[in-house]
């Protein structure tokens, strides 16, 4: 119990003193997760809408595969991205391994199935009459899609929250393709793993609490947007 209490006080101390390294790590975590979530949403929201609106052979199988990928382990994604961007991989020439870009690509790969699947589910939950109403008032297919997306905004924001949460809390991808390089690719989760292995439990707990706090703040902001 003492360790937990000490961790809590340490976290408060680090926050109050605005410890520069902790702030940098937290900022980096937030930045990587925000960029990967935003980029993944830009791809997954329209793609999920297309999959929802259009009928094509194999649609059910595709949706099932997307949903299966929700539970793909982060180290699995890390390995997959590693194979691609390592010096002997197909994208080796780009020298992305152990860079922030690699982490962002890995996190995008990780959360894309979640964003896609939850977007499809969100749109499926919208009354079909909404789309019919839009079409019957003269909307083209794209305008009707936007109407349905707007109607599903609560569920879509929930998908973004889940995706962001998964991105900021993952450790496997950041460790494997980011390399946990101090001042460059070290994020909260990799720092927690490192400090724990070094026996710095108080610091680990403090970083964990900061991670939770960050996730909470982002969730609150997204839900405030949702309420508008």
């Amino acid at each position, binding site marked *: 119990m003492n360790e937990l209490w000490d961790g809590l006080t340490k976290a408060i101390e680090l926050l109050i003193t605005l410890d520069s390294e902790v702030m940098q790590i937290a900022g980096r975590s937030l930045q990587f997760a925000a960029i990967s979530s935003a980029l993944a949403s830009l791809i997954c929201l329209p793609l999920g809408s297309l999959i929802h609106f259009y009928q094509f052979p194999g649609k059910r199988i595709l949706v099932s595969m997307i949903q299966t990928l929700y539970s793909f382990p982060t180290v699995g994604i890390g390995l997959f991205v590693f194979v691609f961007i390592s010096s002997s991989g197909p994208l080796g020439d780009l020298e992305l391994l152990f860079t922030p870009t690699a982490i962002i690509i890995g996190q995008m790969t990780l959360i894309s199935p979640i964003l896609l699947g939850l977007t499809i589910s969100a749109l499926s939950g919208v009354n079909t009459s*909404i789309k019919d109403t*839009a*079409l*019957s*008032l*003269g909307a083209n297919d794209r305008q009707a899609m936007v*109407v349905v997306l*707007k109607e599903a905004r609560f569920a879509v924001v929930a998908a973004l929250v889940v995706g962001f949460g998964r991105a900021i809390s993952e450790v496997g991808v950041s460790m494997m393709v980011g390399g946990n390089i101090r001042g460059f690719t070290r994020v909260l989760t990799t720092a927690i793993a490192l400090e724990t292995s070094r026996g710095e439990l108080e610091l680990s707990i403090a970083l964990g609490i900061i991670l939770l706090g960050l996730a909470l703040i982002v969730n609150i902001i997204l839900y405030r947007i949702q309420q508008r």
Partner: protein
Amino acid sequence: MYLIETRDLNKVYGSKQILKNINLRIETGDAYALIGRSGAGKTTLLRILDLLEEPTSGEVWINGSRLTHKGTSALEARRKMAFVLQKPMVFNSSVYNNVAVGLRWRRENKHTIRNQVERILEMMELIDFKDRNARTLSGGEAQRVALARAMVIQPQVLLLDEPTANLDPLSTSRIETSISRIIDEFDTTVIMATHDMTQGQLLANKIAMIIDGEIVQEGSPRDIFYSPSDKAVARFVGIENVLDGVVITNTQGIAIIHTSDNQIEAVTDYPVGSTVSVCIRPEDITISKTRSSSSARNCFSGSIRRISELGPLARVELDCGFDIVSLITKSSAQELEIEKGMIIYASFKATALHVIGDSHVVETVQEESTRKKA
């Protein structure tokens, strides 16, 4: 050239045929009602007309052009129409934004949008609600928003699916008034689906009766209400008294029809031996305590089986050897001091009856009539 024409339209879902050989011809300015029970195929027909569904076979033509369900021509055709669905589906935004949406999709400028939206909101008595979220409105108000949203784009054709289903009488009356204003004040052809006969009669100048996916009769409200083409239509339009019989004499169009143990006089051209159904509207039957000395050719005595009140009217069920229902005013019922079990007289004129023949008899009579004319 018709504004809308359908040619042999069929729609099949699985093993069920929803629409059978629908051939509609709707002219510009028509207020056209598709009347039938729930599940008769009215909604499917409207959805096909609005290109929301494809027919299994057949064609839809608008302004002489055949409609296709894909590409920009489909969008162009759909933009000439507006469809108000049975359940008013308002978007989760303000009333103003709901009504403006169709104009925004057509890339109208802000000034035009504001003017047109405010004009239509005034007309629909919704201007005070313009900033309210449409989802917080009552069913009647939401339906008015749906109507305003459809009319703001000034469609050539307005499609209405059961515009007053599930609304209270007051809201129904307001919506009917709004539709009536649209018919009178806009250059819009209105096609509405309804199961409410009175509404069809009130708003439409042409009616198509649709039963089990088939148009069984088309004509003016008067044709449908007073000259139904078959028993199903007769019962649907509120003719409660339909008696089956056989024509036993016919002298210059005045026929005696034998029904169970009685004989009814009716004006009809059906020849002797024809199997017919006699339709008598309840409001055409008068009742009296003594045998009527009026011009009514048919007078039957019977005992009152039941009296029920319908607003200002009284519905009297009689057993005259055959069951018959009469609708009289409540004050007439009070004056006559009628009560259950009392023996009274029911009278109706031979000219007030409508006689329907079996289909093969109808064909024979029509052939005979054509031959005579020739």
